[in-house]
């Protein structure tokens, strides 16, 4: 009764363990040179942020009285003095400060993107799956929120409640979930019509389970891509705010704040004060963009 030719070919195909759609994507990603380059860059930046302190000869707060007042002459990058990246305008070690700034920038980027992803995915998938009036109301709300000049609101919040890193995290995350919600909703709508969703509904699987088991796993590709592209946007937003002087509070710093300071003193000839933070800033952004692009290429071809 059982067809035999069909089965034999299938057993020959491969190993016992199934080749998941993820495995295919991983293979394509590993073959993508730009993406792998981006990944290596990111690993380097992350290692710098996490373990860079080990090499530092000074803390990020300490003023080096030896170089104070003669920054241009003595504060330049040098192995001998222990200031690998030189010092800032006040004689603080720029290496330690860059490590610390990179930590903050990465944290703001990652935490902000995570908030955006979690809130946006739940919101968008619910609106798209439930549909009808609920969907209209939920998405209309997003339209309204989107019309708010968020940068203005965030700046206002920072001015009102003081410059706190928590507000920065939350603010940056809450701004960006809306775009995520729209993307996820659109994808959910197109998934909803697929027969496997109908099959689950016909069997009586509850709506939240369908969203968690059938919708979200099929959106992970889109979500992953969008997240990696969102992180650098978060970092840029934070830098912009720091550039305006409203970001994290001294002695803490971020890449944006360092760049801002470096740009302010460039006229005195202390190019390293701009150069090093800018280098790490650019490396981080490139890393995320290349990885995001690679992810998109790796996940795209078959599914959509």
């Amino acid at each position: 009764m059982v067809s035999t030719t069909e089965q034999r070919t299938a057993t020959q195909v491969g190993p016992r363990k199934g080749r998941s759609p993820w495995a295919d994507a991983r293979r394509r990603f590993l073959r993508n040179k730009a993406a792998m380059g981006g990944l290596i860059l990111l690993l380097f930046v992350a290692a710098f942020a996490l373990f860079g302190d080990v090499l530092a000869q000074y803390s990020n707060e300490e003023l080096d009285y030896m170089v104070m007042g003669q920054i241009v002459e003595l504060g330049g990058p040098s192995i001998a003095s222990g200031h690998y990246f030189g010092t800032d305008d006040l004689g603080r070690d720029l290496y330690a400060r860059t490590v610390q700034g990179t930590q903050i920038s990465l944290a703001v980027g990652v935490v902000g993107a995570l908030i955006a992803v979690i809130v946006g995915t739940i919101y968008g998938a619910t609106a798209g799956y439930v549909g009808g009036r609920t969907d209209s109301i939920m998405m209309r709300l997003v339209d309204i929120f989107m019309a708010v000049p968020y940068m203005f609101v965030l700046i206002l919040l920072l001015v009102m409640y003081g410059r706190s890193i928590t507000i920065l995290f939350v603010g940056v995350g809450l701004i960006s979930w809306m775009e995520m919600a729209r993307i996820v909703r659109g994808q959910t709508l197109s998934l909803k019509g697929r027969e496997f969703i109908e099959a689950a509904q016909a069997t009586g699987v509850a709506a939240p389970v369908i969203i968690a088991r059938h919708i979200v796993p099929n959106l992970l590709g889109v979500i992953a891509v969008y997240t990696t592209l969102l992180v650098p946007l978060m970092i840029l937003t934070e830098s912009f705010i720091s550039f305006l002087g409203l970001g994290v509070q001294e002695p803490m710093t971020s890449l944006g704040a360092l760049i801002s300071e470096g740009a302010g003193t460039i006229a005195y000839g202390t190019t390293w004060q701009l150069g090093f933070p800018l280098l790490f800033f650019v490396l981080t952004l490139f890393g995320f963009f290349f990885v995001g692009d690679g992810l998109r290429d790796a996940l795209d071809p078959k599914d959509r």
Partner: protein
Amino acid sequence: MSSLLSVRDLRVTFPITRAGDMPWTAPRQLRAVNGIDFDLEAGKTLGVVGESGCGKSTLARGLIQMVPASGQVVWRGETDLLSLSRRQMKRYRSEIQMVFQDPLASLNPRMTLGQIIAEPLKTHRSDLSSEERRRRVAAMMERVGLLPQMINRYPHEFSGGQCQRIGIARALVMEPKLLICDEPVSALDVSIQAQVVDLLKDLQRDLGLAMIFIAHDLSVVKHISEEVMVLYLGRVMEKAPKSALFADPQHPYTQALMSAVPIPDPVAERAKKVIALDGDLPSPMAPPSGCVFRTRCPRAQSECAQTVPQPGTDAHRTACLFPGPTKQSELGHEM
């Protein structure tokens, strides 16, 4: 004895709002299923046939509350499924299962075969241990002809026929009483179609399943059904026991469908006369007055535009004012 499933005056109407309509303009009504009656006994198969867009899938969805329907769908002579709330309906969803048209699309690409087949068990039998669940899944896989080592594979690694076996295993793992098959073989190669139909027949005999078997041509239905119902624009045109329908079709639409079925013998095939159906399927939003088939019927008279023919309640019922065998004048050119 009451039937397993007793459907009375089932109607499914979709409100269609066109782009640019004002919120207060009444939407147009698309009557996808327009008053269908039938009974189905346990262990028997009803074949449902009709052109694309005649409402076959909507009928299937309406029966199990996947789309809002009106009328009565009486299950085992006691419960009207359409009167149940979503929560009350859940219990019955394990007793009525569905097999879908597109085998690959009906399987979640991110789940393994084992997870897919286990889903109904997880939903309805959370009391089962995971070993017991695995045992049942394995038994079901064997029953539909899937090898045990395939359990961790993903759908895209399988052929269409195998995907449909997975779909069948998922539908049967709860040991339902009724299986609704919505064009289960239309997307498969002809050589595989017969295997899947045979599998369904075997399973039906062994498990005592009742089936509603949807297809768009009569040849597939012929092998599997005890009764056949022919639909057109959401209405029943003819319904009869299989032998009666194939030996003595009464409705001109059934006759036209039948003449389109190829005959295996090439000589007979060449000599065969077909009834050509003129024109396109009318829009279900603006069906013809009177008999919905009249715009394409070779037998249509002026009365057909005034009176809506009713199929009645006989075992062999025909919704036509002038039922009877094909007349010579209705036959088209030789093929």
